[in-house]
């Protein structure tokens, strides 16, 4: 599911991402901004992500809840400016109606 998420950015496919995010999904990005599902889906098409490389990923299961942590590197173009970032994420997923749905994501710049 995390890879589906990453591929959605590369392919600029908000529909694919919409299927795995809960309607009440919330995200805090590396700039400390609070984003809704609609914000994230708009971001998929607004940002030209050229490469998204997941460096590490660990899944912690707590019954029907999963915490996924890891780091990734992204390169792309945002508002005409090229960027390269290394970020750390903490995603929360719940298993509901036979599928995993993400309900939150925290992204912050990785400092190690």
């Amino acid at each position, binding site marked *: 599911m995390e890879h589906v998420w990453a591929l959605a950015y590369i392919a600029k496919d908000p529909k694919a991402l919409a299927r795995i995010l809960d309607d009440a999904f919330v995200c805090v990005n590396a700039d400390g901004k609070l984003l809704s599902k609609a914000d994230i889906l708009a971001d998929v098409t607004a940002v030209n992500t050229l490469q998204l490389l997941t460096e590490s990923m660990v899944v912690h299961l707590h019954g029907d*809840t999963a915490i996924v942590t890891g780091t990734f590197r992204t390169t792309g173009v945002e508002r005409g400016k090229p960027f390269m970032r290394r970020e750390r994420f903490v995603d929360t997923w719940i298993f509901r109606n036979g599928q995993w749905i993400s309900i939150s994501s925290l992204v912050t710049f990785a*400092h190690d």
Partner: protein
Amino acid sequence: MKATGWLLTVLCALSLSISAQDGQQSNEGGPAAVIRGLEHAWVEGQSRNDNQALEMIFDNDLVYVEYGKLVTKGKYLARIKQASPQLSEIVMEPMTVHTFGSTAIVVGTYRERDRQAGKRTVRRWRFIDTWVFQARGWVLVAAGAAPTTE
């Protein structure tokens, strides 16, 4: 220390007596109130270097991201134990609790006031915490924050 222990006892009793509810909910009542109390108990415990209180709030498999680094429960508690409460203060701001059955997400902001080498700094952070309802009540399984200027 005693005050924190008493508060935690009450909060744990509350969380044990309230069953997890189905569906996504917004702010007030039931689990949301308990979790809000636990968030404040966490800050209280940290300000008193009260690792025993924090031990009860955190799941053993806690993942915590602070200052862009991933730390375990053990490392986080070790840092708190050594921290000087006089040099750092956390001021919580409004938070929102969303419950999804036995899982809850808390989103909010806080200010961190530091005093080091005679200098005072204030940073504002936006956080997301994940709580899971277990046999002993609500426990924190993931937490992290990003600096915000908003």
